[in-house]
């Protein structure tokens, strides 16, 4: 189950064939809608849009479910917080705490928003390899003046793709180190401060060492952080144009739904 959490599922659906940039833009539009959505109608409309996209992808219900399910604790937490701490007309009282109608409504809305976000994100990740997402983000960021922050969009993309490899690697090193200090009698409960110290000092050294090695390997392969090409050829084709237009139109309709209802 854990293995499927936001993972890529190979396939050849329409969603798979789209340029990653279209999908990233799509996700961004969808998130704007989701965070603006208040009424049941808007929520329903977003649900319909998701269903259409879901049918256009070869994603499975299980894949979507396993991207949302691991987050259940957080979702339940968000829901309860709103449930108990929103002021309004009380409908029920549990352990001396009031549950209001407004709280129930707000809790459901906010929780549903998060669920929608996770669901849309799972559409992106299940139809796009993480490498293409990185390339897509890099291309979209390229026109922005990141230089002021002292990095280039290339640095950012390189960092993103490397972290996917290095986080598990550092995690492994940390476990090895923990084993070594435990073998020397370290008791984390009795001496938490000493434990922190004996783990962080070597860990920092390991991380620096790795960063050093990596920098050397990048430098000897002529990395300069300036213009580079990619093994992945991104083509913003007619299909992308069409899809983004339709999606944009749909989004606009949902976006202005509250306004339209007033008429």
């Amino acid at each position, binding site marked *: 189950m854990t293995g499927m959490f936001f993972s890529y599922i190979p396939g050849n659906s329409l969603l798979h064939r789209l340029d990653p940039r279209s999908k990233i833009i799509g996700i961004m539009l969808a998130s704007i809608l989701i965070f603006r959505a208040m009424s049941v109608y808007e929520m329903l409309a977003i649900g319909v849009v998701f269903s259409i996209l879901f049918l256009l992808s070869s994603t499975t219900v299980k894949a979507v479910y396993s991207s949302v399910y691991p987050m259940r604790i957080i979702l339940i937490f968000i829901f309860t917080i709103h449930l108990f701490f929103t002021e309004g007309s009380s409908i029920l009282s549990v352990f001396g705490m009031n549950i209001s109608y407004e709280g129930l409504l707000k809790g459901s809305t906010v929780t549903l928003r998060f669920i929608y976000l996770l669901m849309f994100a799972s559409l992106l990740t299940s139809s796009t390899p993480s490498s293409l997402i990185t390339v897509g983000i890099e291309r979209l960021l390229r026109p922005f003046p990141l230089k002021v922050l002292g990095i280039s969009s290339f640095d950012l993309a390189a960092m993103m793709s490397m972290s996917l490899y290095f986080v598990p690697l550092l995690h492994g090193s940390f476990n090895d180190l923990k*084993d070594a200090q*435990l073998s*020397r009698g370290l008791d984390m409960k009795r001496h938490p401060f000493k434990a922190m110290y004996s783990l962080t000092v070597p860990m920092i050294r390991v991380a620096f060492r790795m960063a050093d090695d990596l920098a050397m390997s990048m430098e000897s392969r002529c990395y300069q952080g300036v213009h580079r090409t990619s093994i992945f050829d991104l083509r913003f084709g007619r299909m992308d144009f069409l899809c983004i237009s339709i999606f944009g139109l749909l989004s606009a309709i949902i976006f202005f739904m509250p306004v339209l209802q007033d008429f």
Partner: protein
Amino acid sequence: MSIDIKNLIFSYNRSTSLEKHALNDVSLSIKKGDFVLISGEVGSGKSTLIKHMNGLLKPCSGSVEVDGIPTHKKDIRSKVGMLFQFPQKQLFGKTVDEDISFGPANFGIKGNQLKKQVHEAMDLMFLDESIASVSPFDLSGGQMRLVAMAGVLASKPDYLILDEPASGLDAKNRKILFSILKKLNSKGISIIVVSHQISDVLPLVDRLFLIDSGKIVFKGSPDEYLRSTNLYLPDIPWIMKELHDRGFDVKFDIFDIDEAFYEVSSLLNPQKVDEQ
């Protein structure tokens, strides 16, 4: 006094989709004072096995006992010292002295006794008293390794386990390491060396365990190993065995270069060698 493992089964990430069987029905016993080698390919389960010997891992089924104490019941880490691959990584102290004291202090040794044990451990590793107040990070890679080893020995373990201790060492440092291990063994400490390479260590050990895909596939003395038919042999025994198999009259349980030379020369020219 011994480490006894009976029918040990272990999987990583038990009952998840990432479950990984690492040890399958392993039984073995290592007596106090033994010098043993545990060998096998990378990924065969050697590290997983030794992590059971000081309770870092607990068996899924089966039992692991150190001197009769089950590892899941009581902490036996002061009895079993463990040195991991590239042990210099574990150093953290502001001074060499602080780092070496870490282990014994955790096990409740204090005051003069602590000083004495640190001093003895440094002596065993040929570390000069003058570096005690130096930062371990100012030392050379080789010296850092020795400090790390002293840090484990300072707790005076009865059993010393070393995971791939020779990796990355050149010939001379390897020789020094093995002579230190022999010396420790002669003081009565059991030495358990884990190595994917057999030839270096085999001549030193009393017993050898070969592990493959989580199963013990050979247990026995080095002689028994050389006489076994279907296992990978180091080069010198390989040559002798090939000669033997081709019908030449030579002993084949030989590691030593001089011995192998003598054996073949005497076959070629019996009188001349005898005269020498």
